[in-house]
């Protein structure tokens, strides 16, 4: 009995597990998302921060740019245009280095930016490409966080890597590392302590065993920065890194900060270094003429000492050791060996790297907070590269215009808004400036043409009246009894869906205005921890004071009013509180202690108030600025009484933002430091979305209510849009089990637009537009590889309208149809008739989509509707359609007539060859038909300025195209023109008929009589269906 029971259990288990193994389909990433592709719309006009530039040592056409948050870009044309080559890997770049032994192919990238401002991202180690950047493999340094330098021996397999290391925490993975075997094995050869990393590592250009390494003691916290300490130092090794000596002869004593070092490529005895010291008078540039044995202090001008943590790059002209350039606020160049400096030419401020052309030192490239600049006159005139869409958005928002606009603020590049679609693509000139300084949140008033924007620390909050071109600053000001208002560098603002004029801002208090910022009321007590130890920003910076406001702390960071109930407001603070009010601010509850597993004081970056339930919210926390890179997202359904983590280990990178779908509450979108993640089951499992979304830090996500577009505000790759994510709402196990599944789609509006655009130059970035075509979206359980698979559109009577080529991918496929049928067949002439290339649109209605896959047929319906903004009434539209199709038919009629005539001419010409006596009957046919044809189609000339006078075919197809491509009722003038063309066509047909009856008839009789080869002319149907 017992054993029988066990057998039954075992069988049940077996059956159950087999069934569930068959049933459960878990698709990830590319297997699932298929054709659902993102589009990167930039913008590139303000570009973004560059960390490092590198040139090919032998080919000055090839240049690489490493963006702080936007990956690696390669230029093949001497810096005129750049292409992204590192999309799949972390986009925060420290350094790029090219192997001088194999410069076309072997490239190394150290990730993790090294100019350690408050907003820096993190890297993920060292990468190598051996095919010029098309493919990359990770080499290691998983915990390096940021790599500052890579030095590759020109003669051996030695590679040296300088690891700056963790910015916000202690770390062992710092210092100088050496690989003796081209990167296979690594040994740490210079290490100071857990706080001190290698900020610069250079080798002697003549002797690769001579190394110079600068070591830097530094640390950030969310509320402070420290540069400098007893351990910062400059070292030299002459034995390939076995032993190191400090080379400080001529340096002041005491603590040092960040140290830059450079060796002159043309004279290895000449070195420059820039020091950050305890006394301002000792800061700045030092030079050595004896390879570091002794140093002489030359200069402490502003440009040489400004913000060492942000600007510590020294670059020496490859040909002239006395020409030295230093990064800085404006960049400084000396042509007298470092004694005196002048600023580089006008360009975006904040210069991080400089690259000289290998052949001509007048040609220079400069990496700034606003992209790459080129100079052809030694740095005096600077020209911006206009196709690097590496803009760094902090936040984005959208409006409900058609097409909708996207608003956002950027690191050191102000605030902007631009359209999601524009004639000719989204060009630089489509973007509008809406704020200065560092830009953060930008919000459009829900009903008025007014935009709110801000700069760092809410120093200015602008209310901009777009129609009147007037702005007013409206930031909350302290009133009697107030303590100092503490605004975050990236100060929160919010609008209300309930009260259009309502506007919120957060300092340590929540401020509310009901009149668009003219009157402010505090509706909360201090909602932060108000920890005084975290409010000492005046002392921040270390050896060089740096109180920019970037470290302001114990502030409110995110505000969310419930879309369901305006009395429910959520507030998250940078010091880890999550506060909620259910009575419009009368009382507040701090719910943070209800969250399990979250380290204390972890920054609450975003709260998403749910669209489904007023007690439901999502809170996203991130602790990167304490060195905690874990992902923290919690959901509450009871106003914060309980919180549940919705994170799985499928997610990589700390998260800053989550977006809930408006229709399916289990569909969520999460932005992390390394890309976009999507769950369709409320967070039980997550899948990374990669189709044209790089591994970039996604700071903010919006879902557009009308279009269902998912809009990503990235910190390094601009705005990225996934058009219409609605198919994801319909994904379920039931769908995934089907061999073919069509997703429901809403009726397609046949957009009527015909504007101008597209005047950008070829070197400017243009963001792609969304497709306005109808989308046929379906899922394939398995890729279709063998046998035939077709797709066609049929009208309501089952007639084929057009054939389309279906996608064959496993997962989601998207096929677009521009609601056009085939172009008309036009008469054969000598040249093109351009109007004949126009395909007419079909009429609004329901169409059938038919997929035939092997023996199986799958069908769905597709609905097309007319554009509600159309100028056409139903009656007008019918006239337009009828006239279009009349001209279409006339065009095909003419095509057949000309074909018939050509056949007769050919037969007549052959007849002449076959039978000399036929001259009398054949020649008149040839002559009369050719003369007639000359009036019907162009029979000479070319397709450019050698064009002949247009004839009937050209006039007909021009009118056809004019009416078919337009969006108005045919005008009186067009109808008159049609009459003229019809008359001419009728006359031509009558003339042909006459010739047929007389001359052709004679020739036919002659052929028949002589028993010669008869003529065969295709039927019109056969001719047209060819």
């Amino acid at each position, binding site marked *: 009995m017992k054993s029988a029971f066990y057998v039954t259990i075992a069988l049940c288990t077996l059956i159950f597990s087999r069934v569930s193994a068959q049933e459960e389909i878990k*698709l990830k990433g*590319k297997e699932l998302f298929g054709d659902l592709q993102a589009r990167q719309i930039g913008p590139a006009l303000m570009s973004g921060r560059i960390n490092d530039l590198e040139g090919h040592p032998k080919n000055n056409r090839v240049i690489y740019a490493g963006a702080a948050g936007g990956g690696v870009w390669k230029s093949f044309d001497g810096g005129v245009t750049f292409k992204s080559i590192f999309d799949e890997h972390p986009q925060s770049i420290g350094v790029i280095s090219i192997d001088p032994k194999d410069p076309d192919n072997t490239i190394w990238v150290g990730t993790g930016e090294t100019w350690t401002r408050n907003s820096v991202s993190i890297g993920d180690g060292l990468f190598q490409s051996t095919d010029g950047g098309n493919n990359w493999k990770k080499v290691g340094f998983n915990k390096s966080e940021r790599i500052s330098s890579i030095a590759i021996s020109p003669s051996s397999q030695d590679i040296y890597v300088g690891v700056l290391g963790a910015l916000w925490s202690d770390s062992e993975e710092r210092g100088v590392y050496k690989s003796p075997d081209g990167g296979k094995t690594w040994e740490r050869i210079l290490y100071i302590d857990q706080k001190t990393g290698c900020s610069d590592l250079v080798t002697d250009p003549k002797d690769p065993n001579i190394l110079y390494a600068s070591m830097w003691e530094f640390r950030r916290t969310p509320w402070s920065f420290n540069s400098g300490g007893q351990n910062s130092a400059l070292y030299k090794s002459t034995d390939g890194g076995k032993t190191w000596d400090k080379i400080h002869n001529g340096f002041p004593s005491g603590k040092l900060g960040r140290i830059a070092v450079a060796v002159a490529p043309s004279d290895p005895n000449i070195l420059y270094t820039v020091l950050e010291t305890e006394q301002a008078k000792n800061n700045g540039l030092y030079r050595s003429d004896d390879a570091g044995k002794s140093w002489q202090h030359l200069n402490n001008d502003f440009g040489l000492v400004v913000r060492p943590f942000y600007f510590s790059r020294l670059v020496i002209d490859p040909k002239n050791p006395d020409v030295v350039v230093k990064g800085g606020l404006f960049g400084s160049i000396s042509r007298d060996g470092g004694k005196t400096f002048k600023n580089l030419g006008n360009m975006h401020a904040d210069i991080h790297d400089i690259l000289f052309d290998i052949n001509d030192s007048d040609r220079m490239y400069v990496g700034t907070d606003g992209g790459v600049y080129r100079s052809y006159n030694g740095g005096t005139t600077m020209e911006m590269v206009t196709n690097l869409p590496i803009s760094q958005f902090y936040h984005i928002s959208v409006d409900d215009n058609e097409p909708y606009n996207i608003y956002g603020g950027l690191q050191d590049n102000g605030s902007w808004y631009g359209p999601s679609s524009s004639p000719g693509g989204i060009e630089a000139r489509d973007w509008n400036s809406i704020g200065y300084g560092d830009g953060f949140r930008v919000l459009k008033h829900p009903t008025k043409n007014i935009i709110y924007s801000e700069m760092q620390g809410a120093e200015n909050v602008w209310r901009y009246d777009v129609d009147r071109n007037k702005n007013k600053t409206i930031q909350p000001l302290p009133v009697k009894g107030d303590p100092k208002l503490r605004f975050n560098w990236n100060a929160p603002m919010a609008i209300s869906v309930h009260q259009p004029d309502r506007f919120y801002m957060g300092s340590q208090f929540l401020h509310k205005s009901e009149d668009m910022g003219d009157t402010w009321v505090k509706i909360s007590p201090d909602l932060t921890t108000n920890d005084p130890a975290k409010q000492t920003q005046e002392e921040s910076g270390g050896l060089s004071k740096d109180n920019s406001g970037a470290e302001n702390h114990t502030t409110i960071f995110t505000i969310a009013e419930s879309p369901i109930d305006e009395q429910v407001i959520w507030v998250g603070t940078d010091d880890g509180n999550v506060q909620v009010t259910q009575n419009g601010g009368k009382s507040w509850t701090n719910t943070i202690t209800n969250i399990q597993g979250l380290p204390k004081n972890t920054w609450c970056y975003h709260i998403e108030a749910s669209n489904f339930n007023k007690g439901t919210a999502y809170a996203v926390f991130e602790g990167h600025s304490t060195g905690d890179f874990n992902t923290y997202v919690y959901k509450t359904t009871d106003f914060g009484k309980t919180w549940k983590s919705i994170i799985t280990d499928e997610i990589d990178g700390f998260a800053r933002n989550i977006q809930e779908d408006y229709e399916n509450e289990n569909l969520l979108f999460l932005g992390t430091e390394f890309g976009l993640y999507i769950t369709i089951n409320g967070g039980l499992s997550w899948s990374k979305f990669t189709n044209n979304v790089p591994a970039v830090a996604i700071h903010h996500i919006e879902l557009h209510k009308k279009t269902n577009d998912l809009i990503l505000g990235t910190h390094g790759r601009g705005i990225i849009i996934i058009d219409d994510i609605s198919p994801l709402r319909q994904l379920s196990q039931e769908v995934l089990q089907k061999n073919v599944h069509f997703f429901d789609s809403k009726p397609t509006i046949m957009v009527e637009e015909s504007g101008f655009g597209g005047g950008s130059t070829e070197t400017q970035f243009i963001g792609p537009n969304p497709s306005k075509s109808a989308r046929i979206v379906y899922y394939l359980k398995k890729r279709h590889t063998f046998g035939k698979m077709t797709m066609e559109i049929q009208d309501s009577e089952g007639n084929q309208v057009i054939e389309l080529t279906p996608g*064959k991918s496993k997962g989601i496929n998207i096929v677009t149809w521009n609601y056009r049928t*085939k172009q008309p067949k036009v008469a054969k002439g000598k040249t093109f008739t351009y109007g004949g290339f126009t395909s007419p649109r079909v009429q609004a209605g329901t169409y059938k989509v038919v997929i035939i896959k092997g023996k199986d047929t799958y069908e769905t319906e597709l609905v097309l509707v007319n554009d509600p903004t159309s100028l056409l009434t139903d009656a007008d539209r019918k006239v337009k359609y009828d006239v279009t199709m009349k001209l279409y038919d006339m065009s095909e009629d003419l095509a057949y007539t000309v074909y018939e005539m050509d056949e007769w001419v050919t037969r007549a010409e052959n007849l002449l060859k076959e039978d000399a006596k036929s001259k009398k009957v054949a020649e008149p046919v040839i002559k009369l038909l050719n003369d007639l044809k000359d009036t019907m189609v162009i029979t000479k000339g070319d397709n450019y300025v050698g064009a002949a006078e247009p004839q009937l075919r050209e006039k007909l197809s021009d009118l056809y195209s004019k009416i078919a491509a337009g969006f108005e009722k045919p005008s009186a003038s067009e109808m008159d023109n049609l009459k003229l063309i019809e008359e001419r066509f009728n006359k031509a047909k009558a003339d042909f008929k006459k010739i047929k009856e007389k001359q052709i008839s004679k020739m036919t009789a002659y052929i028949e009589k002589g028993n010669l080869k008869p003529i065969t002319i295709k039927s019109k149907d056969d001719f047209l269906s060819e």
Partner: protein
Amino acid sequence: MMLALFFVASWAQAQTADEIITNYFENTGGYENWGALKGVKMNFKVNQGGMEIPVEVVQLSDGKQYTKVSLQGNNFMQGVYDGNVLWNTNFQTMKAEKADAETTANHKLNTNDFPQDLYDYKKKGYKLELVGNETVEGTETFKLKLVKEPVTVDGEKVEDVVYYFFDKENFVPIAQESEVVSGPQKGVISHITFSDYQEVEGLYFPFSISQGVKDGPSQPITVDAIEVNPEIDESEFAFPEGE
């Protein structure tokens, strides 16, 4: 059953590049039959915004080739190679023009790539390497790297590399990638997918090809007919002198 699973897994892991392509040629008609192929003629239509354009492509084993594009009843010859001259019809003047010397020289290097560049790659001095696995078209594939003779671009020698993605299940290539090496698109990765493999006289050809750029738009074509060993008049390839 466990044993069988084990074998399948280890067999899949032990694949080498040579095994993959040998398998492919054998399964799609036989290595020798592919080698005996003298030429291919392919007819398809390109659909551009509702405009259907008929195209005929011919490739012969001796390197001769043409693409005939039919527009409003007139034929435009493109990429025509007669063994010596590479030429195109200018769409404006409608006259034949020779391709520039560098393009022609690069093209000549590819004339040994019939029926496919992978075929007999060793004899041609090419290098083939299995570089890894990748999910392409939602499908697990082997990624193979083929390095051909270097080409010359704007005076510089550049490696000619093609990546093939072979479906792990059935050993046919379902995608191909290569870096665009010349022109303003230089550096962009061209991405081509293959499907609808069907038999023509014992050999399997993809009847659906979609050509575009990686992570960007693509242009699909559906092949109407493929003819093997077609009879083509030599004059079709000849550059029309004195036009």
